[in-house]
């Protein structure tokens, strides 16, 4: 396989594949970050995570339509508005869901799985009824399209760079929020000992709701970003759910750093394998490897050893 390419080509291959892997990595981090907060910090298995993402995508679609029709002059900047709105919409829905559903299930993690699966079906059907069964096309402003040529073979897609920057920004924000802010302290306190946190005056219900909302909001932003590279339809969200959970679990669930490391290793493996194998087999082998490693090391990549 390698013999078919010249040495110069091979260099270009690795450069481009590396970059493709980085884009995939950013996408995975975006997908997994919200879930890492919800699952890792709160222990809630949110099977409707993909549907929260798609809500963000639909919000973006509406923004693009609205700006095209009403504010064509501001169209180039609409994407930022869309992302903000996506965050608000998904976050608000998330808080609503937490308040009506999740709140009652904190002690039954497996039941959150079933309930949120039910929620995902309801959301899918709602999207279908409201937005129609077909995929919608999101029109992107021109500056997000195209690519920057580096050499005559290597070209860097602009939206890829955009996704990477966005991912970095969100990750840093979340990390600061979780580890530096007072609110993050409260979240971690609630995670570690709900009763005690409540006893020292933390409003655990509020913390829970905000945490869940934040996770869903990030999913919304991810969905918004995904309109650049993926499809937006009522069932698109389901495509991501298994990958996302595997990333979070592989990373060790409770650790943001673990999630990032796991997204990195999975994306690089898949991207490299994809070049040498068929897409289907690359996916199978990547997933199998992850599952096999998880069987051997169930605690994931990063975890603290504590007395049980």
């Amino acid at each position, binding site marked *: 396989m390698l013999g078919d390419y010249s040495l110069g080509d091979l260099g270009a291959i690795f450069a481009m594949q590396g970059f493709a892997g980085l884009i995939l990595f950013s996408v995975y981090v975006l997908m997994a970050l919200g879930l890492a907060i919800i699952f890792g910090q709160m222990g809630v298995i949110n099977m409707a995570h993909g549907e929260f993402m798609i809500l963000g995508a639909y919000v973006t679609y509406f923004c693009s339509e609205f700006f095209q029709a009403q504010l064509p002059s501001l169209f180039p900047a609409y994407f930022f508005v869309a992302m903000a709105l996506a965050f608000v919409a998904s976050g608000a829905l998330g808080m609503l869901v937490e308040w009506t559903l999740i709140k009652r299930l904190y002690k039954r993690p497996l039941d959150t799985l079933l309930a949120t699966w039910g929620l995902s079906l309801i959301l899918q059907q709602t999207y279908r009824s409201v937005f129609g069964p077909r995929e919608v096309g999101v029109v992107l402003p021109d500056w997000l399209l195209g690519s920057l040529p580096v050499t005559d073979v290597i070209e860097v897609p*602009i939206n890829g760079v955009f996704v990477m920057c966005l991912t970095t920004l969100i990750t840093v924000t979340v990390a600061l929020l979780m580890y530096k802010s007072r609110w993050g302290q409260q979240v971690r306190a609630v995670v570690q000992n709900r009763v005690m946190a409540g006893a020292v005056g933390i409003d655990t219900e509020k913390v829970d709701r905000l945490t869940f909302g934040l996770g869903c909001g990030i999913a919304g932003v991810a969905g918004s970003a995904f309109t650049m590279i993926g*499809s937006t*339809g009522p069932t698109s969200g389901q495509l991501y759910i298994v990958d996302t959970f595997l990333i979070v679990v592989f990373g060790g669930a409770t650790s943001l750093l673990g999630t990032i490391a796991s997204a990195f290793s999975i994306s690089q493996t898949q991207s490299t394998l994809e070049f040498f194998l068929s897409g289907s087999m690359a996916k199978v082998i990547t997933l199998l490897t992850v599952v096999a490693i998880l069987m051997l090391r169930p605690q994931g990549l990063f975890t603290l050893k504590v007395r049980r």
Partner: protein
Amino acid sequence: MSRDDKTGFHSPLRRKLLMGMAAAPFAGMMPKTAFAQTPATAAVNTTGLAVTDTEVTVGILHSATGTMAISETGSIQAEKLAIAQINEMGGVLGRKIKFIQEDGASDWPTFAEKAKKLLVQDKVAAIMGCWTSASRKAVLPVIEQYNGMLYYPTFYEGLEQSKNVIYTGQEATQQILESINWVVKEKGAKTFYFIGSDYIWPRTSNKIARKHIENHLTGTKVVGEEYFPLGHTQFNSVINKLKLTKPDVIFTDVVGGSNVAFYKQLKAAGINLEKQTLITISVTEDEIDGIGGDNIAGAYSCMKYFQSLDNPNNKEFVAAFKKMWGEKTVIGDVTQAAYLGPWIWKMTVEKAGSFDVDKIAVASEGIEFTKAPEGYVKVHANHHLWSKTRIGLAQKDGQFKVVYESPELIEPNPFPKGYQ
């Protein structure tokens, strides 16, 4: 018929068909038009189908939910439109068509279950339905066992033929050979790169394309072939390979949501479809809705029908469709093929002078539909349609500009010799 004798039918089917042939002249003596009189139900329905003196029931069987709802909605709409139009003209043999719609829910066993329900419980005279090959394969044994009639609208991989199915879409050779010949002739293409979703239709289509490129044309070759799981959304790796191999033609049969991701990423990676020739056999106007015209403008699609076809039949059809389903709806190849189903069935029933499935199966051969939106089509003895193939150039507005039309009707050949 001779070709089919060698390559076509499973033996029991052939026997039935031959028996039916003997009855054909008899059927031909029946009155061909039914506008004037309404023949007695007992005469036109000897097998206990759901036919009354005023009504005849057919089934519509598509996915209204699940992942395939995206694609199948258009078919449902087209079939309902055709039925409404037929009823407006007085129905079939003086009977209005009533339809029962069932949801296959994108799940193949459900399709089989619902097909059986339509045939056994509802006794429908015909079923307009199915979209994916998998759903058709699931339904086929049921249709054959209970002797129903299925009008199947999707372009598909061929390798199948049944007395109980009329295939109103194209089989693979009709769609593919013409397009490859065209691109070799027009663009001087020498190298091809295949990219498809990983299931039977793309694989079979690509196999036919490959055989044609390697064995039937000179100086052309396939330089790559890649398959991705259904629903795959990351195509950067294959795009890198495209950049390295620089094929003259990218030949794609990616389906569903993957399409959207593929074209968006292709564009983002700087592959300009104005310069790089890309031919797809899986993108219709329906898909462009989701992909976005900007992202795919410049690609060639090879279909038998485009919404932009410039003929009076089509103008009328498009107008009627939009009137019924809204100005924003688009009409793709399969939607049009689905529209043909009820019409061809109506004409066949009237030719046979009967709703009986056996008589329809025989009478189908030679049915001509001159007012089809795609233009004149005719039913072949193998139950597929003679049709023309067109090549459309995708425009930014989501429509295709037809740049080529095969001069003659192409004969359907579901079991192509030398391509298997």
